[in-house]
């Protein structure tokens, strides 16, 4: 598979404080979908922001095959201009990416946002805001899509719509999605990148992870993730003990 994103020893720290990312090494292939999982504060949002070019890495090398104009980015919070209508917000991105009429209609219909397009974005419910924001991020088939917590505030139906868009509309794009909803994430991603304290613990498909950790093929990924996290915790405390 052609290499699309390459990270070598990537580190990032906020204002001289504790490092948010440290020694990250991984590659993402072209057209591959990667799921980012990890506890709060593990560096998921920081990694996505660095990949989007919103934040600069403090060390290492991060290479991406596309220019930043071709990245579709959905932040975890905010994003829409509250004083504009949903349609006007979408129009900014449709125009920037020369999105054809068919695509505009497809996104509005699939995500179920046609009826709220004329409403002011600031007055929309959190779920509707997320759906509009998602449409803004993926409009025009960007080759690289970064989605930070796209399933938060959404109902089951809308979550499935988002999964459908990622599977159908973004089938040729490389997608990185962070979420705490492992069930949804496993369905749309090829591999999962598990982060903890800014470090990579695993990067493998759900199936490979189950095999590696001796779990049943139908075992819930959530339980498996907790086991991997506990193993990592144990390894860390053992290392700490050896050093002392």
């Amino acid at each position, binding site marked *: 598979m052609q290499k699309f994103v390459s990270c070598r020893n990537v580190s990032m720290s*906020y204002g001289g404080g504790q490092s948010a990312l440290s020694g990250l090494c991984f590659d993402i292939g072209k057209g591959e979908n990667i799921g980012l999982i990890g506890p709060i504060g593990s560096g998921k949002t920081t990694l996505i922001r660095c990949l989007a070019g*919103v934040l600069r890495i403090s060390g290492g090398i991060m290479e991406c095959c596309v220019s930043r104009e071709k990245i579709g980015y959905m*932040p975890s919070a905010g*994003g829409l*201009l509250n004083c504009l209508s949903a349609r006007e917000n979408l*129009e900014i991105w449709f125009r920037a990416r020369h999105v054809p009429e068919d695509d505009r209609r497809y996104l509005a219909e699939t995500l179920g946002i046609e009826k709220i397009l004329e409403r002011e974005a600031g007055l929309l419910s959190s779920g509707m805001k997320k759906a509009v924001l998602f449409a*803004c991020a993926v409009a025009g088939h960007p080759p690289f899509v970064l989605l930070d917590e796209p399933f938060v505030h959404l109902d089951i139906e809308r979550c499935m719509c988002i999964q459908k868009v990622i599977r159908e509309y973004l089938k040729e794009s490389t997608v990185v999605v962070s979420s705490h909803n492992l069930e949804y994430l496993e369905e749309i991603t090829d591999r999962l990148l598990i982060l903890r304290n800014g470090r990579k613990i695993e990067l493998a498909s759900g199936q490979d992870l189950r095999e590696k950790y001796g779990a049943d093929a139908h075992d819930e990924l959530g339980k498996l993730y907790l086991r991997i996290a506990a193993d990592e915790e144990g390894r860390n405390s053992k290392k700490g003990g050896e050093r002392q």
Partner: protein
Amino acid sequence: MRNAVFRECRLIWIFRRSAVFIMILAPVIFYLLPYARSLRGVTELESEILAASGLFGTTAYMIFYIVYEVMKCERESKSLEMAAAFGGIGKVVCAKSAAAAGTGLLCALSFYALSCLLWGRNDLFSASLLGINAANALIYAFFAVSLLCLSDGMAVYFVIASFPAVCLTIGLIGENKITALFLLAEAAAAFAAREMLKKQMERGKAGWLK
């Protein structure tokens, strides 16, 4: 860049009513100034000086109003992050500055037209005066946007809000050397703000991400 400017224009369009109100009212106020002064027995100022100060003052005020409203909207919506991801914060700042300066210069144009009508003269504004005003508009807009990206603290608003009054005073002084010195200082401040913005990005503590 064109798309970034389009986004800014779309944002500025929301405040069109207030902007038109400022464009119409500002020249009237400046036209009334000499009368107000003569009522208090103060020596009347030359029309050229009043025209220059009015031009500087109204342009700067319009830029302040636009930058303040647009940045308030961006901060409340937390929308700068997504815009910055598309073309980088540098491009966003440049687009915002260009759009705000453009609106300021539209206000200057309105001031020019209404002043010519009210004073009945069209020789009040020299080409150099219009050029200096355009340069001042661009630098001030860039400085204000950069500063508001760095922080939305009280001190920042105070500095930005004081500029229209400073510009008005510079116009009233009417000294070329002082005007040039002011423009240089303003450009240095804008450059410093841009460098601080870059540093914030490197340190991972970008004010505009909050």
